[in-house]
Structures are given as structure tokens and as C-alpha cells.
């Protein structure tokens, strides 16, 4: 075991993946000698050479198009998009190409070996274009997996699993926690399962669901509510697509209440999908409406960032409203 932050865990996972499989290649803007603007790819080029770890021209649609070609050839590309906010130029390559590659060719060709890493999320004074959480745009797209870790241990295990999964994976890293979240991480190779939620803390009165950086928000809100005698079951969804409806529904069947929290705007956010599915499957168990605590339906603001965020206080208030419905 070693103490690592999320960046070090990501870097460690990349080292292991590249040592393990010579077909793994890492590329994107500034990922080469410089090691990435967040230093997630530090020392990789020195160790594995410029052919396997390289800078690309500044063109997101090109990075993902190039990665699609590499993956269809049999290589294992790990492409980086510098900020989740800048993934949209590659939206066409991801949605129309990456996601449909296997299906449209009847399984003759696939880009299953592709992993796209991108930092996401707010809380760093990033304004409109260094704060977004675009997971719901991609959740509407069959053919790709979406994975979001919450701490260094999760980041390493989920990233290694994503790189080795036989499906293209969009791996979103909570940049607010890159250095803030520090924990024990095994130095050896290990993987955590994709498509599986994790019950972080058991409880009996209400289920609280989030992912990524918002996990510490719902944990904080749960502590506040506990002082009022509310027992919260806390779940980290981890995989947005495919998502683990069984674990969530089992929890709601027990608690009878559900609150979902995400940074992204409310309308069309992934909480809507979870809420609709849970009310369909757990209609007879629900004792109150499903609560969604999310970002406002505005572009991500700068001066009003604190007010915009679905923080622990908003979450606590929603827990109490749900409990007293």
C-alpha cells in the first residue's frame, strides 16, 4: 500500500497498463514529455518512448478519430481530452463512430480497446469551460461505457478495468479531487468491476446516490442528517453506463426513499434516468417523491459557483424534506 492522490493513482494505473501490454498507447494534448497539464501522464514518455506516449496537435475530433482508427487496428489507445468541456468537438467521433463501430459492422470491426480519459467537474473556479459534467450527453448513447471514480483507490482499479474492457470507455476524472483526495492504494495490479455500484455505507431511512466528486457532498449531508436521527444508505454509482439499477432498486426497496445528487444541470441530467427507472421498479416501496439535487439549468457560472453547486446544505435540506413528506 502507498499513499496516493487521484493523479498519482491514474499515473500508476497507466504505468501498469503500459508495462502489461505493449499495445497500450497514451496520447493527447501536452501528455508527452510535459506529462499533462495535471501531470497525470508524468514520466510515461521517458519510460515507454515517444512512439507510445505522444503529444497530438490541438484537435479533439482528431484525437478521438485517430484513437478510433488505432483501436480498430488492434492497438489499445488511452486518449486524453484535456477538459471534459472540450470533448464536444469529438462528440461526432464518439457518438457516431466509437459507439457504433461494432454494431454497424456486425462485430467485424470494433474499437472496444479504446479508453478516453477526461477531467470533469466544477469547484475550481473554472467558469463555463473548465467545470462541466457532460456524462448525461453520453449516457444517451448506446455502445460506450461511462465510468467515474471517487477516490484514488477507485481511480486506479476502475481505470485498469476500463483500459482492459472490450468496450470503449469514457473515463471521467473529478479534477477538484485530483490532489485533494488522498488514500491508500495497493501498488500491485488490481481491477474494480465496471457496471457495478458500491454501497459505501448502509442505512435504513433513505438512499443517497451520487458519483465522482459529489460523493463527499452526500456523505457530509448524511452526517448532518444523522444528527437528526436519519439513517442514510450511501451509494456510489461508479458506472453511468451501463448502470447498476439492481443495487439502487434493492436499496430503495429497503429504505423507501431516494435522493440523487449530481453537479450537472437538472434537466436531462442522469438523475432523471435513475429516478424514472426506480419509480417504475419500486413504485410500491416509495414513501416520498424521488429528490434530485443538481446544478441549476444554467451554464456553469464563475462568481456564483458556490451558489450553483448542489452542496451538502442543499442536499441536507432535501433529505429532511423527503423524510418529512
Amino acid at each position, binding site marked *: 500500500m502507498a499513499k496516493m492522490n487521484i493523479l498519482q493513482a491514474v499515473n500508476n494505473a497507466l504505468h501498469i497498463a503500459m508495462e502489461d501490454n505493449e499495445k497500450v498507447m497514451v496520447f493527447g494534448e501536452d501528455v508527452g514529455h510535459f506529462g499533462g497539464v495535471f501531470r497525470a501522464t508524468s514520466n510515461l514518455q521517458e519510460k515507454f518512448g515517444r512512439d507510445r506516449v505522444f503529444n497530438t496537435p490541438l484537435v479533439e475530433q482528431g484525437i478521438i478519430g485517430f484513437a478510433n482508427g488505432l483501436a480498430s*487496428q488492434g492497438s489499445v489507445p488511452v486518449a486524453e481530452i484535456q477538459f471534459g468541456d472540450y470533448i464536444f468537438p469529438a462528440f461526432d467521433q464518439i457518438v*457516431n*463512430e466509437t459507439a457504433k463501430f461494432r*454494431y454497424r459492422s456486425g462485430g467485424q470491426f470494433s474499437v472496444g480497446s479504446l479508453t478516453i480519459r477526461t477531467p470533469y467537474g466544477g469547484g475550481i473556479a473554472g467558469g463555463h469551460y473548465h467545470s462541466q459534467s457532460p456524462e448525461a450527453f453520453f449516457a444517451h448513447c448506446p455502445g460506450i461505457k461511462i465510468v467515474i471514480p471517487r477516490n484514488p483507490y477507485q481511480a486506479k482499479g476502475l481505470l485498469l478495468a476500463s483500459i482492459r474492457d472490450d468496450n470503449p470507455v469514457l473515463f471521467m476524472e473529478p479534477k477538484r479531487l485530483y490532489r485533494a483526495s488522498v488514500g491508500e492504494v495497493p501498488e500491485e495490479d488490481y481491477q474494480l468491476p465496471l457496471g457495478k455500484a458500491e454501497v459505501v455505507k448502509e442505512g435504513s431511512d433513505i438512499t443517497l446516490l451520487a458519483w465522482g466528486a459529489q460523493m463527499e457532498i452526500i456523505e457530509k449531508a448524511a452526517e448532518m442528517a444523522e444528527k437528526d436521527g436519519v439513517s442514510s444508505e450511501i451509494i456510489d454509482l461508479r458506472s453511468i453506463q451501463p448502470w447498476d439499477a439492481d443495487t439502487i432498486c434493492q436499496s430503495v426497496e429497503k429504505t423507501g426513499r431516494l435522493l440523487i445528487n449530481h453537479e450537472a444541470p437538472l434537466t436531462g441530467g442522469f438523475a432523471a434516468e435513475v429516478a424514472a427507472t426506480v419509480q417504475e421498479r419500486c413504485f410500491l416501496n416509495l414513501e416520498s417523491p424521488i429528490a434530485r439535487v443538481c446544478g441549476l439549468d444554467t451554464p456553469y457560472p464563475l462568481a456564483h459557483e458556490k451558489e450553483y453547486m448542489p452542496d451538502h446544505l442543499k442536499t441536507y435540506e432535501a433529505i429532511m424534506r423527503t423524510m418529512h413528506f
Partner: protein
Amino acid sequence: MKTRNHLSHVGIAHEVNIISNGLIDIPMLQILSQDGVVHKEAVEPELDQETALKMYTTMQFTRVLDERMVAAQRQGRISFYLASTGEEGATVASAAALEPQDMIMSQYREQGSLAYRGYSTEQFMNQMFSNEKEPNKGRQMPIHYGAKELNFMTISSPLGTQIPQAAGYAYGQKMAGEPAVTICYFGEGAASEGDFHAGVNMAAVLNCPVIFFCRNNGYAISTPAEEQFAGDGIASRGIGYGVKTIRVDGNDVLGVYAATQKAREIALAENCPVLIEAMTYRLAAHSTSDDPTGYRSKEEEAKWQERDPIARMAKWLVSKGWLDEDANKKEVEQMRQEVLQELKRVEQVPICKIDELVTDVYAEVPPILQKQLSELKAHIKKYPEAYPKTAGRID
């Protein structure tokens, strides 16, 4: 370490001298004249009789197939078709200059390349009728061919997306140490997409052995080339990206063959991209959903009919004593019969079972999709007459 920096190639001037278009002349390689004679100053590429005849009959087959399938679409037997009339020379001659291990990534008007690789009439038909023998399992529109065993990447509709993919594929070939290149076909309209810029620039910077092959046929649906770009075609852009470039007469099979062969040699030896701009004309309608009489003249089309790549090659073959025109006429008639027979036979083949609707979305079928399939099957069983193509074959 490379010593090159962003000023390495920059000379100094002391006058205001705005560079204008047209200062660099990019001529069009033509080996075979319009009359089917090799130009005196030109070097005829080494091409044996067997290869030359294979090229010729493949072009003829492509045209026969196109004519038959446009008619089949008009009769409502298939939903869509897209002919390559006038451009068979560019696609067949370029494919002939490649090796079987080279990957072909095409746009959608390159059926000539696929036919040259050996895709059979039955395989073409299976795809167009979206039946259960079709490798795409009936999921894509007609003409979206793909053949892993022939190194022909499955076609997709979004334009230009294959251009950066070809750069990546070629990079992978290089890394794997394969003696192979990737050829990437696209039209001059697709070259306006951002993916063209992305792919060509990346291929140049990352040293990818890829041939970018542009079919400049004058039109993107109804949009003439002069509304597509103001520069000197697509070739002039290659120079800007630092990519070795050649412009060739796309209706001259010898010119296209020689250019592609040289491009392949350079791409492989130097690990770099090469851009070929083949000047041709889309004699066909854009697709069966298009009527060109709304945007161009019969006179213009007639002018290009005279430059038919098939007729031009025939004259050359006859001059070599390699082609017996009477025997060839019979052969083409036979092709027509075979294509018609295959059409009649293949249109009877059923579509895939409903289970294939949910496979290949992911490597494994996720539980939510399993559930959606079960519900759908139950529904079809309840209303079988509404779903006649699958209702009788549910397990």
C-alpha cells in the same frame, strides 16, 4: 532531439508581399490521353496483361452492378443506392496499385475498390438487401459495405470521419511492424469537414503511412466545387500540411495506378502520408434520392461522358492487342445475367432474427437490453401480422 523549430523554414522579406492563390502550379498527371494513347513524354507504368484486364473487367462489373441496382431501387426492391458511374477508373486503378494487406477506408462511392479486392456479386447483394447473410446483420443502409477478410473497413455515413481514423489505423500498422499502408478515400465535399484538417495534419505530424485519396468529382450532391472551396482544389492543402501531394487525372487508369503505386512506396518507406487528388466527374446522380437535372446541364454531362474511363482504357487495351472487343461484349452480357440472377435469388433470403437487434452494441448484451429484447419478443408474438419479417422465427 530534432533541432527544427517554428522559424526553421522562414525566410526574411523586406517588402509587403501578400501571397496569392495560384502561385504554386499543381499540374494533373495524365499518362493515357483521352484517345487512349500513352502520351509521348509519359512513362507507361509496368502493368501485365492479367492485371490490366482484371482492372478493366472490374470497372465494367462495377458499372453493370450500378445500372442494375439503380433500377432495382426504382422498382422498390432495395431502399437506397449510390452509383459510381464515371469514377470507376479512380477507385479500381488505385485499389490495383495496393497490396492485399493494405487497409481500405472508404467513403461510399468506392465499390470499384471492393470489387477489385474480390467482393462477390452475392456479397454485394446480401448487403444491399440487408439480409441475414450480410456481415453488418442488416443494420446499415445499402452500400455501407465492410469486409474484414478483405481489409475493407465498414463504411459509415458521417462524412470525413474515416480520415483521422485512417491516420490512426496506419500508425497502428507502423507500430506493429506490418509492411502495409492504409488508403483513405473521400470526396472533395467531405474534405471541407473538420475531420479532413484533423486527420491530414495528424498523419503528417505523427508520421503515419497513409494515402489520402480524394475523388474530386466536381459536386457534393448539388453543390459545385466552386461553392465548396476557393483555393486550388484539395491538392494545394496537402502542401500546407507538409504532406507529399500529387494531382492526377482520375479518368486515366494508368495515371491513377502510377500515382498510387508511387504514393504507397513513399508512405511505406518514409512513414509519411501522401495525398492524391484525382480529378474526375460524378456522371451518376448523387444517389437514388437525388435528381441532378435540377442543378447541372445535360451538355456538361455529355462532355464528361466522352471522357469515360472505361472507354479510354478499352482503346489502350485494344492497341496492346490485349482485348477482344466481341468476346468482351459477351462477357459483359454474362455479367448482366449473373447480377440479375443473384438479385432474384438474394432478395428471397430472410433478414436476421430479432435477437440480432441487441447484439454487438456492447461486447456482451447488458441486462437492460436483454430485458428490452424479451419484452419486444412478447409484443411481436402478440401481434405477429404487424411484424411479418421476424414474427415466425422467435425462439
